[in-house]
């Protein structure tokens, strides 16, 4: 019995990966499975965790899932968040403008796809990469590095730019036709937008807009934290996505909630960290607590919880103390702030 060709598509749910999937599945008639990797740094997911609605008041939906349903193509969502930390902390090819290790990220995901491809007998891998669209990962040279590092030479099909790239193995085997693919390059998305109309593709996500690692505010907190410790864990990284961040004079890191969603989110860390709380107002997670900072902690809580003398509960090693504190002056607080506040609210 002859083998029916099939392909895996690296799928974000953005316009380019949707077009790539449509080209291979609907234009070329190849069976595909969409693979969406959960890295833990998706802004949509984070908004949902904090109960932040879209502008239309609706709950943000995972863009990959939404797109897969619209295209009626099977999708698998794979959680790689724990392993992904190492990619962020030790990128072989460095960071982009912020703490986005785009090239290492691509290589990591493609290696994961390679594992699935070999295990489940897929023929090739498809991506929505566009030649010259991103300087960090999509120049001709970078695409070459990706193939070399992953050992996938000739097995990655990039339908959007295929006519501008060397012939791939699936083309040589006549599994797919080069003339049915496209010759898109550069940062302009005009051609993609026209193709989206042709193939009835919905897209909302801005290009590269759903990853925390490209966020400059996140990057400031990331670098500041790394200047205090050698490595970071998942809790450190999660906490960088919420709240006001302050580094107190004796080294304590204080992360204070700004709204009900953040209070709920930060409360989930109470069993693993020291914390301060003002009833019905706000919670602060305290990392690397130096007890000489306790007066600061109480006074900062007073400032953000009504700006008046306030009772503050503080838990240190699971032991509770209660303090009444006067609000700390704004100019002192401002000098303790780490970066600027997150833009996600």
């Amino acid at each position: 019995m002859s083998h029916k060709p099939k392909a895996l598509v690296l799928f974000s749910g953005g316009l380019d990966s949707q077009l790539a999937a449509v080209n291979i599945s609907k234009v070329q008639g190849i069976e595909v499975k969409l693979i969406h990797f959960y890295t833990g740094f998706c802004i949509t997911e984070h908004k949902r965790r904090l109960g932040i609605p879209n502008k239309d008041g609706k709950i943000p939906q995972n863009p990959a899932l939404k797109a897969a349903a619209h295209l009626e193509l099977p999708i698998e969502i794979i959680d790689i968040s724990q392993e992904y930390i190492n990619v962020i902390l030790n990128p072989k090819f460095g960071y982009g403008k912020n703490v986005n290790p785009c090239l290492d990220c691509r290589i990591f995901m493609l290696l994961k796809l390679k594992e699935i491809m070999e295990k489940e007998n897929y023929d090739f891998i498809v991506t929505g990469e566009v030649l010259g669209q991103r300087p960090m990962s999509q120049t001709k040279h970078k695409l070459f590095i990706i193939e070399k590092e992953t050992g996938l030479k000739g097995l990655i099909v990039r339908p959007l730019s295929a006519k501008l790239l060397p012939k791939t193995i699936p083309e040589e085997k006549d599994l797919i036709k080069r003339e049915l693919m496209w010759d898109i390059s550069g940062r302009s998305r005009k051609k993609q937008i026209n193709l989206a109309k042709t193939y009835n593709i919905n897209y909302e996500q801005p290009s590269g807009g759903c990853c925390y690692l490209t966020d400059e505010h996140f990057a400031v907190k990331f670098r500041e934290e790394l200047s205090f410790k050698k490595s970071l864990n998942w809790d450190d990284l999660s906490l960088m996505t919420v709240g006001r961040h302050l580094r107190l004079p004796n080294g304590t890191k204080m992360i204070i909630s700004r709204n009900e969603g953040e209070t709920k989110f930060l409360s989930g860390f109470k069993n693993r960290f020291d914390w301060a709380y003002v009833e019905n107002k706000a919670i602060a997670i305290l990392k690397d607590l130096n007890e000489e900072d306790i007066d600061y902690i109480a006074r900062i809580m007073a400032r953000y919880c009504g700006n008046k003398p306030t009772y503050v509960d503080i838990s240190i090693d699971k032991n509770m103390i209660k303090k009444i504190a006067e609000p700390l002056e704004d100019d002192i607080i401002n000098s303790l702030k780490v970066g600027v506040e997150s833009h996600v609210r």
Partner: protein
Amino acid sequence: MLDDIKADVEHNVCGTYCPIPISELSNQMKKMQIGQVIELIADDPGVVEDVPAWCKATGQEFLGIYEEDGEFHAFVKKVKD
């Protein structure tokens, strides 16, 4: 009507958010036989849209969803491997 459905597998993912509930749903369904029903229990309100969307994409049968005390109970029947 959902009261009449007897799930073969119950899977609680409360405390996790998009897309983990769907990833968990998918993993559980891989272990199930065709014809079996899973009840996914989640407190992420996004599952109301995510579970039917996942079923539409993957060709599995979405049977329905209800909310009780802030928890969502979604029922999916495995109809294909």
